[in-house]
Each structure stands twice: as C-alpha cells, then as structure tokens.
C-alpha cells in the first residue's frame, strides 16, 4: 500500500547504465509503473494517458544528472510535471470591492459541504473578517440545524429561512441579512446534488444568478474515483466554479481526483480539509499533493504535523535527552502521544521516504500501542525515570494496575531498551534498521 513509486522505478530502472540519456526502451517499463501508480491513486484513466504521454516526451532523451539514478531522474520529472499541472492558476479567493463578498459552496451529497462551510467561516474570522453563513440546503433533514450548531460553535451568525423549500428565497434572505448586519463575507451552504439531476442543477443555477457570488467553490471528497471528471465537468458547465475544496484528506486516499479535476476543468484546488473538528481549512500545496498521489514520502507534511503535535519546549527537552542517548519512560510516553496526535503509527512512518517499504508486511497493532500507554501510566514517576528499578514485585503491581500481564510489562521494558539502542544509533548519525527491530518485536509476540 505504501510502497512508493520511487522504489518501484528504482527497481525497473536499476539495470540501466547509471549515466547517459534515457531511451524509449528504458522508459517503457517505467511509464507502465507510473500509469499503474496514477490509476491506483484514482486519477482518471484518460487524464493518466495524456499525462504519461507528456512525461514520455519530456523524459525521452533527458540527461540523467550526476547526482541522481535513472529512477530518481524519472521520479523527479513525474513529480515536477504533476506539481506544475496542479499548481497552475491562482488559487486565492476573490473578495468584493464592496462587501459582502459572497461565496457559494456546491457539490455532491456527502462531499462535506456543511463542514467545509463552517471551516471556511472560521478561517475568515481568524483572518479578521466578519463572515456569516446562510443555510440553503433545504433538502436534507436537519441540515439547517447542523449548520446552525456549527455556526454557534465558531461564533459566526447563521441565517436560515425555515418552512420553505425555496433555496433561492433562502439565499436572498441570507444576503439581505448579511447586508443589514454589515457582515463582509457571506458563505452559502447548498444542498448536495447529483450532477445528472437536471432539476436540482437548475435550482443551483438559479441561486447562483440570484446572489451573484464572487467565488463558487466545488466541494470534492478526496476518496472520489474515476467519476470525478464527469462530476467536475458537469458542475463547471452549469455553475462555472472558480475553485475546489478537497475534503477528507485525513484519510489514506491518495487523492488522484485533484489531478483529474484540474486536468479537465483547469480550475485549481483552493483549499484542503481534514477532519471533522472545526479547524481552519488548509492551503493547497501542489508539490505535497503530487507526492501523495505518487505514494511517495511526504516529508514536508510529516514535519509540519510533528511540529503541530509537539509542544515547543517539550520537544526541545526531548531532543536534548535523545541526543544524549537517554530514553526514560516519560520520554517514551511523550513521543508515543505525539505520534498518536500525528495520526496512526503506520501512516506516519509511511511518510518517511524509504521506510514505507521497510514496514511492509510488518503489522503495527494500534491496539497494542494503547496498552503501552496504560502500562506506563501505572508506573510511579520514579520508575518512569529509572526503568532499572522495575523488578519482580513492581512488575506485578504495574501489570495489575494497567490490566495487563507481567509478560506484557516485560515486553514493554524490552521494547524501551531497544528504543534506547535506536536512539543511541541515531545520536551517532546511523540510520536505524527498522525492519530488524520490528521483526524482533513481532517474534517477541
């Protein structure tokens, strides 16, 4: 799953002379791998064909630069092309010269419009604007309640017109309210609709014509497959959207739809959204998305997530101690909790280039990790700092306290020792061999 394209390309191109130009024959196998990777990432197959043709053109006869292997060279070309393609075009919101700026969100059912509306409102509020929300989804039961509750949580007013099925009236009401209350941005949450439902698409066009939005944003689920192009083309034709919010990127979908939509409509991704928690939307980073689609390590995102998760000084302290090659159970717990905040262990590790492959076949049991926390929390502060203290009777007490067995406590004690070794290795600048360590862990179980 997390096998990266770069590893595969290294494989098929490893028999090449290390230097010189890439030939048609060399490229054939590589292009097949690229095609497969893009299809597995849900990039539309027609878009894949065009893209692969473009890569072939550029890579053919390309000089392999001194510092790279042929495989790396091809990856670099693919990555650059992908990032270029997705990065073209402005992805900024347009604001009205005379407020309120009107932003219309539309999309299929379940793409995440209501949550995205609230997140966008929160983001604008944090930027110093005074946004408001208008509930124009009159189809789904309780959609108005949902938007009102979210608006309340982020302290943004929500305008709703109850007792009507007329979305145009609801939108007009929202705009009037926003003007009357002097809000400078109005975000309209509309009902989810299928692009083939002519009547509902007509309704959306009518709302668009009534409120004359400055920005129309298509909300698109990152898990969308091949049909993303059909959906995007239909919405583009009817309501000419200016940007895309890609949602649910906190999952493990590779998000090839981002490329498909850009390729067929030319409209850039404006924001990305992860999680149901009300946090601002994130700006779209083409290079990162390219890495994600290609299944390559996303070091930037990893670093950023790690930075967010770790409290500044806590991290500094931890680093100092790790540099000295000391690892107490408190450190163990801290790093473990940071990791949990960052996401699942495997998804975090998979972001580190080269490690995704090493982890293959090794099952990291997340529930096992939950037990770790319980065991450590059952130790006294002193025991956590001086693990050598933990002998027979203490082990029994800890096992009882954490609802585990002495054997499980022993496993953790052994694991800490392993980690300590690892930390020392890193301290000396060696790359640890995760595979052998993980294999030991598995055997121990």
């Amino acid at each position, binding site marked *: 799953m997390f096998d990266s394209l770069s590893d595969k390309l290294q494989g098929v191109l490893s028999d090449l002379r290390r230097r010189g130009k890439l030939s048609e024959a060399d490229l054939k196998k590589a292009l097949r791998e690229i095609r497969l990777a893009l299809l597995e990432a849900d990039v539309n197959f027609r878009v894949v064909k065009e893209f692969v043709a473009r890569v072939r053109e550029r890579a053919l006869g390309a000089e392999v630069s001194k510092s790279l292997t042929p495989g790396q060279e091809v990856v670099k070309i693919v990555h650059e092309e992908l990032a270029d393609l997705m990065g073209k075009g402005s992805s900024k919101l347009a604001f009205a010269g005379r407020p309120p700026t009107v932003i219309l969100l539309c999309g299929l059912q379940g793409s995440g419009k209501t949550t995205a509306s609230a997140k966008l409102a929160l983001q604008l509020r944090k930027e110093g604007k005074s946004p408001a929300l208008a509930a124009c989804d009159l189809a789904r039961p309780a959609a108005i*309640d*949902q938007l009102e509750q979210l608006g309340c949580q982020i302290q943004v007013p929500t305008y709703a017109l109850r007792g009507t099925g007329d979305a145009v009236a609801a939108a007009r009401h929202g705009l009037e309210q926003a003007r009357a209350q002097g809000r400078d941005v109005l975000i309209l949450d509309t009902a989810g609709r299928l692009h083939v439902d002519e009547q509902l698409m007509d309704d959306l066009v009518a709302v668009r014509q009534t409120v004359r939005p400055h920005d129309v944003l298509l909300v698109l*689920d990152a898990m969308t497959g091949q*049909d993303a192009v*059909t959906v995007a083309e239909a919405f583009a034709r009817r309501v000419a959207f200016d940007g895309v919010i890609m949602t649910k990127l906190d999952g*493990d979908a590779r998000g090839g739809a981002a490329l498909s939509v850009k390729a067929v409509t030319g409209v850039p991704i404006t924001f990305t959204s992860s999680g149901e928690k009300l946090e601002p939307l994130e700006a779209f980073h083409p290079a990162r998305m390219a890495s994600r689609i290609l299944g390559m390590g996303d070091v930037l995102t990893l670093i950023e997530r790690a930075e967010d998760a770790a409290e500044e000084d806590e991290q500094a302290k931890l680093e100092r101690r790790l540099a000295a090659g000391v690892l107490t159970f408190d450190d163990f717990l801290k790093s473990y909790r940071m990791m949990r905040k960052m996401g699942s262990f495997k998804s975090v590790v998979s972001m580190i280039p080269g490690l995704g492959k090493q982890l293959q076949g090794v099952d990291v049991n*997340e529930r096992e990790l939950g037990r770790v926390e319980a065991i450590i929390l059952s130790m006294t502060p002193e025991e956590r700092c001086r693990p050598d203290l933990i002998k027979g009777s203490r082990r029994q007490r800890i096992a009882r306290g954490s609802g585990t067995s002495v054997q499980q406590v022993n496993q953790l004690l052994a694991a800490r020792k392993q980690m300590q070794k690892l930390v020392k290795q890193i301290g000396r600048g060696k790359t640890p061999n995760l595979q052998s360590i993980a294999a030991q862990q598995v055997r121990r179980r």
Partner: protein
Amino acid sequence: MTRTWAELLGGEVPVEDEGDEGRRRRFNRLRAGLRKSRESIARGLVGWRYNPDDLDAWEGLEDILIAADCGMATTQEVVEALERRHPRSEEDVSTGLEEIVAALASPRGEPTLDLSARPAVILVVGVNGTGKTTTIGKLASRLAASGRSVIVAAADTYRAAAEEQLEVWARRAGADFVGSSRGGDPAAVAFDAIEAAQARGRDVVIVDTAGRLHTQTNLMEELAKMRRVIAAKLDGAPHETLLVVDATTGQNGVRQARLFDEAVSVTGVVLTKLDGTAKGGAVLAIGNEVGLPVKLVGVGEHLDDLQPFDARDFARALVGVGEAADNE
C-alpha cells in the same frame, strides 16, 4: 429479473401488495438509475469489436472496467478470467463478463439479510458522507412496510444535528426512535435501543453510527467497543453489520472495507448513490479482495429507492450488456 425484498429477506416475509402501478414505478426508477451508468458504459463499449488478437480491443475493455473504478488488480483478473473462457463471439464476451462480474460482487452466492432473530440488530457503519442515515431511513421504511416493527438508534452522537436528521427519517418510516444527547456514549445508545426493543417486543433494531475514516484508530476502536456492547447485550447480535459505500468512491473503498471488516466484522455492503454516473466498481474490488458481498443498492432519494442488490443487473449495467432485454 430484479431480485425482490422477499428473496433478500429469506422469502417468508409478508410483502405488502404495492399493486402493479407501484411495482412498475419502482422498477422504472431502478432502471432509470442504472441506465445512466449503463449509457456511459455503453458509450465506452461502442466501437468495441471482439477480436481475440486485437490487443487494442482488450485494452479498451480494460479501460471500461478501470473507468468504472474496478481498480487495476480486479480489472486484470476480470480480463484474464474472460480470456480463459476463450469467447468466440461478442455475445460470449457479454455473458462471460456478466458471470465473472456477478461472481465477484457476490462472493458467497446470492446474499440475504438475516433478520430471523427477535429482535434482529443491524449495525450500520461507514466513512463520512456515504449516506448511512439516509440508507437507514429507507431500510426502516421498507422493513416497516413488510410488516416488521422497527426501532432506529441514533448512535451518531458526534456530528451536529445527526440525531435530528435520523429522527425525521424515523417519523417518515413510522419507526420508534432512540436517541441521546450530543457527545454521549454511542454504545449506550445501542444498548438502550436493544433494551427498548426487548421490552416493547420490536422486531428489528437499526443502529446508526457516526461516519468515521477507517484510518482514525480511536474512532475505529470506539466502533469495535460498540459492537462488543451489542454482542454482550444480545446473543448473536449484531445479526447484520452493513458497510455503506458511496458509488463515487475509488480505490480507497478497498481499504475502507478491509479496516471496517477488521474492526466490526462486516456482513455486507450497501452501495449508495448509484443514480449518478459513477458505476460503483469499487465493490467488485471489495468482493474480490476482501470477500464482502453487496446486499443493497441505493438508486435515488425516495423512500423506495433502496433495492436488494442484483448481481446480474449490476454486471449488465457495468459492462453495458443486456440492452435488448430492457427494451420490452
């Protein structure tokens, strides 16, 4: 012939007589929903002429399956299985594809919905936005129409207004409703609902859960706990655990199925939003790689747009065959 609810539920159910008019309307809606996907597939098949030596033609077939979100691995398996049958005509290709696709989508034979227990508990799970609540509304209404008394439990205690949404559906279906406050314990809601069903002698309990991404370990753990609580409360429950998958979902669907199955032992898939242009081929990959059968399909917004899954219909829609049979 499209499968009926009676077949899905085991054949012994008194199905209300909806009359010729109702039956025709229901069938037409299913057909209209499927036709849209069929038309685009058929467009793909236009110009596809059978010639065993024509590599381009075989590649074209591959494209059709890939465009339907079947995924590379499953697409190749389908094509190879077809090659092994050495089709001699275009008709051989059509029937061959139909059989291969049908076998993949129903890996355990014709699926049924086991609701023989009293009460029978159905747990409904899935990622965010696939249509769990809407599916439950339609299912409750269908089961009520077939003479069963239903309780729906709003164990989505996370999303704002999720409970209100389900309550509206419960009212429409004439089902009892058990809820809790937002932020409450979802397992407790399921527990209460089963208890209410036992006390009131209700036939079916349908438990709605909060949408969650399969990668959110703690939320998946919460779901597993909910399942354990249900199993502890009532022997043999949940009798069905349905994973709701959106037809627009791409290859991530396989990951979803695998991880949800690991957490709560899924018994079947509900494929929703089949009334758009997406073909839902991801369920083939799910059947092929995870071994989960599709049990129900959603083909529209109306109460009776939830249908028993018919593997042959689905196969025909997917590869665009059987047009003649439809033109009666």
